[in-house]
């Protein structure tokens, strides 16, 4: 049992008992779907439907349905990819790094954050697949599989190949980590289940959990080991994603600052997305006592820190471009701020650098409505950051003869909607059928003394 100083604010409010925790969390899983859940699901499925049409047409007609051209070979596809991967950073960061740092407040949010990570990585993984001209061969040619072509190997110099490894490793570890954490909770639901189907389903999902002390011990060891494994991955995934750009020769991409800058940006956007989702879940599932204002404030502080890192990175890029004395590099940055895509750049600057600074005010960072709005603004800003890096660097690179504009089509938007539909459908299914808060862990931070907190 956790021994906590009595002067500390309780992490779970409302004087919840261990039983209350079980009741509060399992209620969602055991009860009938609520109206709001049904509506959410309907909207998600509709979005997924539109998106599926776009994906179908993309595969049927070719990449030409997008707005790309000979100069701008990547735009929304890779922007969305990096954006989703970035969002997928928060979950593992919260559960792994905060676990290592013994930040107990993570416990009420890590489950949902990890789920979000997994779904975001799935959405992200759609794009490297769908953006290929020949997905039907590319999906396995990009893997170093033994073959009969002599034997034709992949190109280990290519950052895209590094991506394949980075993303698949991250996804695998995140999934296992998340699932291991779910097992005791599945067991709780199994034990409480009244109908046969749930009993069987959760029985399978809980892998025969018996709640023995030995089992708990193993569980904790595995969680710690996986946390240790996942921690470097949090840093490595976005580092490697940033190599897609950093190792190239295109001005605006060819930048050594990218790895730390991308990781900070990823945490920034990931936390924003966690906030967006948690604020809704908290309200709908009445979990205010578990996800408290304190949580929100702590996450907002992370957002200020990472947002400021990102801001400094933006300024550093400009400084280095000037300091390098390389004309093309300088022009790339002048063009970002003042060229045809100035609006994208300034949207990015406003959303990512200026707006998070509002969280310096305590009453803003503890205001739920303000947090919700800013969390969405941050994610808009982070989408534009990737758009700015990818499109404005490409559209005016070395030879002015090739300079071009990129105009998105319905299908660019449609495939993005597809991932939104996929993400929210998956997340809603998760919220309904899986315990959204880690009951087992939260129970460990319930005040167990006789001093019942009235807060």
């Amino acid at each position: 049992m956790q021994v906590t100083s009595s002067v500390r604010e309780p992490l779970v409010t409302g004087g919840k008992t261990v039983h209350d925790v079980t009741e509060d969390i399992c209620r969602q899983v055991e009860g009938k779907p609520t109206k709001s859940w049904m509506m959410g699901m309907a909207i998600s499925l509709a979005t997924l439907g539109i998106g599926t049409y776009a994906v179908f047409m993309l595969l049927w007609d070719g990449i030409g349905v997008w707005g790309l051209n000979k100069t701008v070979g990547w735009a929304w596809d890779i922007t969305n990819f990096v954006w989703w991967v970035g969002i997928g950073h928060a979950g593992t960061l919260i559960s792994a790094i905060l676990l290592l740092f013994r930040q107990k407040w993570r416990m009420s949010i890590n489950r949902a954050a990890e789920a979000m990570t997994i779904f975001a990585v799935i959405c992200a993984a759609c794009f490297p697949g769908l953006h290929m001209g020949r997905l039907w061969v590319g999906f396995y040619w990009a893997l170093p599989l033994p073959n009969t072509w002599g034997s034709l190997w992949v190109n280990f110099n290519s950052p895209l190949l590094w991506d394949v490894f980075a993303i698949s490793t991250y996804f695998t570890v995140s999934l296992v980590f998340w699932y291991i954490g779910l097992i005791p909770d599945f067991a709780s639901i199994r034990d409480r289940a009244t109908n046969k189907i749930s009993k069987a389903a959760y029985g399978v999902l809980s892998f025969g959990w018996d709640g023995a002390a030995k089992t708990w011990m193993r569980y904790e060891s595995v969680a710690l080991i996986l946390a240790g494994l996942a921690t470097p991955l949090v840093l490595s995934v976005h580092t490697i994603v940033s190599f897609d750009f950093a190792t190239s020769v295109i001005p605006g991409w060819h930048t050594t600052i990218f790895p730390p800058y991308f990781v900070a940006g990823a945490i920034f956007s990931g936390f924003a997305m966690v906030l967006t989702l948690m604020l809704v879940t908290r309200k709908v599932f009445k979990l205010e006592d578990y996800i408290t204002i304190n949580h929100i404030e702590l996450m907002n502080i992370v957002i200020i820190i990472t947002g400021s890192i990102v801001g400094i990175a933006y300024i550093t890029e400009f400084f280095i471009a000037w300091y390098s004395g390389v004309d093309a590099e300088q022009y790339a940055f002048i063009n970002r701020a003042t060229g045809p895509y100035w609006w994208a750049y300034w949207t990015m600057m406003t959303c990512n650098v200026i707006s998070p600074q509002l969280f310096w005010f305590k009453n803003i960072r503890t205001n739920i409505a303000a947090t919700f709005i800013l969390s969405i603004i941050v994610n808009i800003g982070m989408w534009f950051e990737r758009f700015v890096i990818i499109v404005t660097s490409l559209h005016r690179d070395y030879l002015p003869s090739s300079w071009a504009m990129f105009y998105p089509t319905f299908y660019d938007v449609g495939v993005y909607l597809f991932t939104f539909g996929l993400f929210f459908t998956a997340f809603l299914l998760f919220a309904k059928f899986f315990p959204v808060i880690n009951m087992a862990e939260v129970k460990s931070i319930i005040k167990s003394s006789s001093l019942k907190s009235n807060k």
Partner: protein
Amino acid sequence: MSDNKKTYWKGIEQLSNDPAFVKNADKEFPEFLPINQNEGGGSSRRDFLKMMGFGIAAVSLAACEAPIRKAIPYVNKPVDVDPGVPNYYASTYTSGGDYCSILVKTREGRPIKIEGNKLSEITQGGTSAQVQASVLTLYDNERLVAPVVEGKEGKWEDLDKAVISKLGSIAAQGGQIRIVSNTILSPTTKKVIEDFKAKYPTAQHVTYDAVSAHGILAANEESFGQRAIPSYDFSKADVIVSFGADFLGTWISPVEFSKQYSKTRKIGPNKKTMSRHYQFESNLTTTGANADYRTPIKPSDEGKAVVALYEAITGGKKSQIKYIDKAATELKKAKGKSLVVSGSNDPAVQLVVNAINNALSNYGSTIDMSTPAYYRQGNDVEMKKFVADAKAGRIAGVIFYNCNPVYNYKGEDIAGALSKISLKISTADRPDETAVASDYVAPNHHFLESWGDAEPKKGQYSLIQPTITPIFKTRQAEESLLKWTGVDTPDYYSYLKNTWNRDMGVSNWEQALHDGVYQGSGVANAVEADSVATEVAAVVGAAVPFSGNVSSAVQAINKNYKGSGLELALYQKVGIGDGTQANNPWLQEMPDPVTKSTWDNYLTVSKKWADENGVEYFEGHCNKAKLTVKGVSVELPILIQPGQAEGTVGLALGYGRLNAGKVADGRGVDAYPFVTTLNGAVSYNVLSDVTVEVLSEKYQIAKTQTHQTYMGRDNVIQESILSEYKVNPLAGRHEPKISTWMSEDGKVDAGALSLWKGHKYNNHHWGMAIDLNSCTGCSACTIACQSENNVPVVGREEVINRRDMHWLRIDRYYSSDAPADDHKGLEQAAANPEVTFQPMLCQHCNNAPCETVCPVAATTHSTEGLNQMTYNRCIGTRYCANNCPYKVRRFNWFKYHDNGDFENINTAMNNDLGKMVLNPDVTVRSRGVMEKCSFCVQRIQYAKLEAKKEGRRPVDGEVTTACASSCPTDAIMFGDMNDKESKIYKMLNIKDTEAADYITEKEIHEPRAYHVLAEIGTKPNITYLTKIRNKDNEETKA
């Protein structure tokens, strides 16, 4: 055994011996089996099935008649055709008066590529985009497949019968017959026409040209008594002055002139002189873009400018027009080594031009009047008379021989005139505007299916030989004429051969056919008015005495050239020209060398005019305009053209076709109705009554390049002027350095530092050198590459989407007046800019950024320095294209072949006929893969194998790329940089280094040689030579 009394029964039935059993006891099957029930009569189910089976088989066998195919498998190998081995035949491209001596590459009996014929003294192996593209016109689905008799597809016999009887009855009644044609270069065709005229005495031959040179012809008739164009020799000229003559793009014989011109523009360690070129023109033409000094003038000032130059030369009179005085001074200094030409079709202007050249003693040196050229023979006066006669009902029958006056002679009311003619026959190859209006169409062969000849210049003969059996039921137009003349079984081949034997005195026909060209003394061609003066000149070889009334010409000019308000200058685009080959998608999608626009014509206006009239523009989006000329108006897009003379607008001919075919119909607007008459000749300038109203509607012209300037980037374009080059051969070079501890002075060339060890090329090391000084931007290479490498055409919409597929593009940059640090200002081209053309193709980098980023190693480096693309390994991530600093990689966004969406766009890959043009040595790429220039690897392999078969190494010149071989100015040089005897090795002054590491770069010591974007260390195998302009110091721009 005898004790054994046991009895065995077959069954209870035997034991009991009941009668029913005994009855069947001897039978094998005791029960009834209905096997032979019907033996001997009736029919069973089985028989029915048998009969039916046989019946069906018999009926179906009878139904399928064994198809008779004319194709004979190559098991019975024809002589001369080896599958996989191309054959080359010498032939001649003629289209009206356009001429080019060519070699036709055929594979398995199909012509697939056109190369220049190096044996020709005229074109010297050069080609143009139109020539290169003509092979696709052969496989045009829109061609007529059979003769048309009164609007319906018919038979040749019926057509001939009808035509002969009608011609006969016209002749019997003494009705007038005319043969209308464009310039005919063929002496034999003219003989056929003479035969025809002999049979029908009322027949006359009227010649006109879509773009007339009547002015020159008339002026020369007056000056020298000879109605012909002289032979120009730009290569001998030190000073060239052109008044609106686009001699590198569209004027008279651009391939020939480009070749000559380029000789004066090439410089090197041993030749530090070049010609100086002045251009006075309204629209910015390819030629104007190459000029050292260019003055934009209004069409109404064109005559005056010529007069001003004349007066400056003869009288030293000062002129208001910029550079006239400077040109005059230099012309006078370069007497006998200068050349003044004018594109004007006004005989008065041309007469003054003749006077200038005469005053400069250019006749006999740069102008050869004793070897007249027959490129343009059209007589505007006669044609006008023909239309007037027809309108008055004085013409009874007309044969339109390979011409389309309903489309391209709209200045007069030709359509109205046609309705008065009772018999109209056309030999058009397609149901074009004239053919549709004709009663009979006797479709002619494509020139690649024909026999024929040409005499482009006096004594210079050229043969046309068929390279494929006629694809359709077409007939050579000459044979049609012979048939109608009364020859029962016309055989034009024998007719031609006889003519050559008899008239040209060709004894070795085989040799002439092999060479494609033959030099003789010259038979009397079209020039009916061969005067004594010519013969004298031919003997003496010197200038013919010039006789012309210059003062009356000057008076006429002063009287006629009065512009009021906006003026319209009509011009031809390098690709589409006069519109004859408009249905050729390669040409439609060929970016115009100057505007970089495709698929449209447009009103070119100056930036100043656009700003004053509220024209809004961004990335090719621009307002449309309503152009009204003398009451006729059209709506068309606007294009802001730097260098456009103030007060003028320009519009290209050749568009707005109605009946050219699905590719061309409705593209752009038809400008022929705006052609006017001036001083008795057709004029392509409208000096008054031109109004332009800017409409609010926006239109996007499909441009392959939307950014106009090179933003002052020295790593892209390196240029200087001749005087500085003479002092320092490194003039204009941009040599960025990087500080390092590795060298003694602390600095090394940017790009010298590398992560990579480099490549060792033990055998060949292919390289290319591109001379920016000789490249005129003509784009022959772009089309040659398209033809050689099966490059798809993507259509207007996809060009707007910036997805053109050309492997080789020509970047065109304008200069800007803005200072180097004003990025916004640098985006704006100068009002009258300097222009640079830069062919841009895969640079075959030794440290290729594309190669490292491909996840599946689909693009790799060869052992001979090529950056090679493996299409079937490509998964289409496009990372390579993003990471290419030169942006030369092309992605297959869609399936461009066998796709209904591209049916009328990419005809070479979407119908069976069009597909015949595809090069079988080059894969047609599938959707979703990346492609790019391969350095024509198929040609390299072919030449290597040929050499290997003969047990030797390939010699220099044997391996060449399509672009290099098509170039009329030899701006592109391709060769093995390992071969010390190769031209490229010598020209680039390569020194071999024996460094163990970092062997990627050949040490190039030619001072003008540079690599584009050298500082990023890609180490390309393509080297550019700096652009040097022949300008004086004070005139240079930033």
